[in-house]
């Protein structure tokens, strides 16, 4: 018998309670050790679950309540490689975050450690759950922990306002999910994903199903920060403490997309099959998110905000892969998501290093001051290349699969979007790296004299970034990975097979794994596209750093005429005001809803 799926959730929760209850007896070092041990244990358990699920999903009924006559009485965890993989990613990122915060973080007794463990437990529960209301409960638990962690730095009013916006907007998103659940429950009397899918599978979608889908989709897209539900993200992610930012950028936004994919394929793929019009609606959101995020990323001077907007734009790219509504697109999206999460985690740690040594996060104020931080410079440049999707990073593999799926589905122009957005996000980071570590470009700081000694390299600060980047490389290089992902997504998208496994306990139809999988027919085109992204990014970065060297003339002038007003409009829209975020949420709901309703007519 394999690992009990309840353990990766129960262990950190119990540990968190112990840390708070026994806090007078626990010193800083013990708290750090215990929390780290908890995170490592969760990672190990989830990795073991990942291995267990190679032959098919593992279904675990809490309280021993197995289904009767196809009616689920209790709550189930349905563990499959995608869910277990995301849970393992969360464990790895949490471990990295806790190593980073070892001894230097202002922890308020044992409360930081307890909150991080609860946060991790909620993420794991969310990924493993097979019951819609149970997913909602874990969604709220991870949100509550996130609100408290985001507002940690109470001496910074920007951080508090960001946490307020985060909490208000995401709470509304949560209520939308709950309303969707109520609608589905009213129709089917079920909360279990498999049972819901079976109940809805017979008939085509009617108005209730469409509106329930809209509510759930908008609710999860708020968490994922898809445009126009993303206005809360920048302040919250950028001003949160660095170890918290690692988890936020690395896995939390992606959870919204995971939930959307899971709920779509298990519940809605029967009544709302993956036709052209649904794909178009989703792709619209994906492309808008990718482009808005990319442009805003380039406009930032605050290093962490750059990463926050890079998160938004890469969420758009991942959603594009999912929006194709095919297994191969989903497979690419999953690979991309995991590798990208690792790279962003490493980048957050690198920014933390800059902050730690130089006590500043504004790019212009840091010009040239990073000359004596060779390790950090290397990490940031490597991270920027990872964001661009350059081989051998895992992001390259994911993008290659998504591009091939897009072409097969009839959307070859999607590759252009991928190239452009990857160029934008990597350009922002390369520009920042050039300015901070090489002193290029303008700025408000005076570069330090050359005889300043190199600062001590702290292993607990640099180590996590190195390990995370190495993991992103491993995702890109491991040979059997693509094959295993393909098997996993075949099962993920098979609604009736899933329902049979969960409700009747039959193992699904055998999905034969081709050794080595079906790699994209040729890696030449994707590699060329990735190289193009990186070169474009470099060009954009250099263009920003050395404007005097730009060729004067028509093209530059035309670009500037298009760029400046767009930038001004976008900047004005992202005001950080709560009323604005909620208004755009409703606008997005109305817009997506109208499109979906027209589809069903």
């Amino acid at each position, binding site marked *: 018998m394999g690992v009990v799926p*309840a353990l990766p959730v129960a262990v950190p929760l119990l540990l968190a309670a112990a840390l708070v209850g026994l806090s007078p007896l626990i010193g800083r070092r013990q708290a750090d050790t215990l929390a780290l041990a908890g995170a490592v244990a969760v990672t190990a358990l989830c990795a073991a679950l990942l291995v267990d699920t190679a032959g098919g999903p593992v279904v675990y009924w809490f309280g021993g309540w197995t289904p009767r006559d196809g009616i689920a009485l209790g709550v189930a965890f349905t563990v499959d490689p995608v869910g277990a993989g995301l849970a393992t990613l969360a464990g790895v990122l949490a471990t990295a975050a806790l190593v980073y915060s070892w001894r230097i973080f202002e922890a308020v007794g044992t409360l930081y450690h307890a909150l991080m463990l609860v946060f991790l437990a909620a993420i794991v529960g969310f990924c493993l759950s097979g019951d819609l209301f149970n997913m909602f409960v874990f969604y709220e638990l991870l949100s509550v922990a996130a609100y408290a962690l985001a507002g940690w730095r109470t001496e910074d009013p920007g951080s508090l306002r960001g946490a307020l916006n985060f909490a208000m907007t995401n709470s509304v998103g949560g209520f939308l999910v709950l309303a969707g659940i109520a609608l589905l429950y009213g129709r089917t009397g079920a909360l279990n994903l498999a049972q819901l899918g079976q109940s809805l599978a017979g008939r085509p979608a009617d108005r209730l199903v469409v509106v329930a889908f809209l509510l759930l989709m908008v609710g999860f897209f708020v968490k994922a920060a898809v445009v126009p539900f993303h206005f809360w993200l920048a302040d919250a992610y950028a001003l949160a403490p660095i170890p918290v930012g690692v988890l936020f950028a690395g896995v939390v936004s992606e959870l919204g997309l995971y939930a959307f994919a899971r709920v779509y394929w298990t519940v809605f793929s029967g009544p709302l099959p993956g036709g052209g019009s649904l794909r178009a609606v989703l792709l619209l959101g994906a492309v808008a998110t990718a482009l808005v995020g990319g442009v805003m990323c380039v406009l930032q001077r605050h290093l962490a905000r750059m990463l926050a907007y890079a998160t938004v734009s890469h969420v758009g790219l991942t959603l594009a892969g999912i929006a194709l509504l095919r297994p191969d697109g989903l497979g690419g999206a999953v690979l991309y998501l995991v590798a990208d999460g690792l790279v962003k985690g490493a980048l957050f740690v690198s920014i933390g290093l800059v902050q730690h040594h130089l006590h500043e996060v504004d790019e212009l104020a840091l010009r040239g001051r990073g000359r004596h931080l060779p390790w950090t410079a290397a990490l940031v440049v490597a991270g920027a290349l990872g964001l661009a999707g350059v081989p051998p990073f895992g992001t390259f593999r994911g993008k290659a699969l998504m591009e091939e799926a897009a072409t097969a589905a009839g959307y070859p122009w999607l590759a252009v979007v991928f190239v452009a957005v990857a160029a934008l996000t990597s350009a922002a980071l390369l520009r920042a790296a050039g300015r901070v570590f090489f002193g290029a470009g303008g700025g408000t700081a005076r570069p330090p004299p050359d005889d300043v000694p190199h600062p001590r390299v702290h292993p607990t600060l640099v180590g996590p970034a190195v390990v995370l980047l190495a993991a992103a490389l491993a995702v890109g290089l491991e040979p059997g990975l693509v094959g295993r992902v393909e098997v996993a997504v075949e099962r993920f998208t098979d609604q009736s097979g899933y329902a049979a496994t969960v409700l009747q306990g039959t193992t699904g139809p055998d999905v034969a794994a081709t050794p080595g999988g079906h790699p994209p027919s040729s890696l030449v085109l994707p590699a060329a596209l990735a190289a193009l992204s990186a070169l474009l990014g470099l060009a954009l970065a250099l263009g920003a750093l050395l404007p005097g060297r730009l060729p004067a003339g028509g093209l530059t002038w035309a670009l500037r005429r298009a760029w400046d007003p767009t930038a001004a409009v976008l900047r004005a829209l992202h005001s950080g005001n709560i009323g604005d975020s909620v208004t755009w949420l*409703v606008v997005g709901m109305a817009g997506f809803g109208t499109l979906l309703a027209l589809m069903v007519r």
Partner: protein
Amino acid sequence: MTPAVRRLVFLAAATVAGALLLWGLTGLPPYGVYPGPYGDVLNQVAVAERKATNVVAAVTFDYRGVDTMGEEYILFAAVIGVAVLLRAQRGEVERQPDEDAADRRAPATSNAVRVLGLALLGPVVLFGVYVVTHGHLSPGGGFQGGVVLATGALLVYLSGEYVTLRRVRPVFLLDLAESAGAGGYVAVGLLGVAAGAAFLENVLPLGQPGALLSAGTIPLINLAVGVEVAGGLVLLLSEFLQQTLVLRRPGEVT
């Protein structure tokens, strides 16, 4: 956006969104007709299977017990969060509230309020304990009873005895109570795993429906939740009161 523009945009969008919502809601079965199988099946079998006469409690703590565990930890995380967010910042000092009683403009609590508040304290606490322990039999349960217990602390504050409460309030004990409640829930769940069954499986003897000691693990979990909710809410209350009444920047009056 300026407030006026925002209002217009919102109203336009909300009209469309509202219309869509209503369009979808009309697809529900008519109000008063419950078609789905879940509730009916549980109403039939829960009492016989779990010997608990309050089926809602059986659903909350047994059939869907893991949801409630998550919910309990939401309260736990929120209490920690508030403690973190309201912690004393650099430069703030604690000043005892009775030190500025002399300049306080509000009148001291009248004797009538004080007597009534303290007289009600006993019955409220007793009622809270009753609701918690009888959760599996009649309406109520850990959450509801825990809130009633926490209002006992609120009564003490309202009776003007906050200063006494502060001296007597044992933060350490409240923390311990809250954690014991939260951890206790998980421990009961692991009890099932240790017994070779599933997590949160009801492995204790079930007794007879209607008896106080029945329904296996349900009253135990009820108790854990009641303790946690009571401890957590009293902590929340004391954090906010501390922030409002006690923490002062140097030189600040009231």
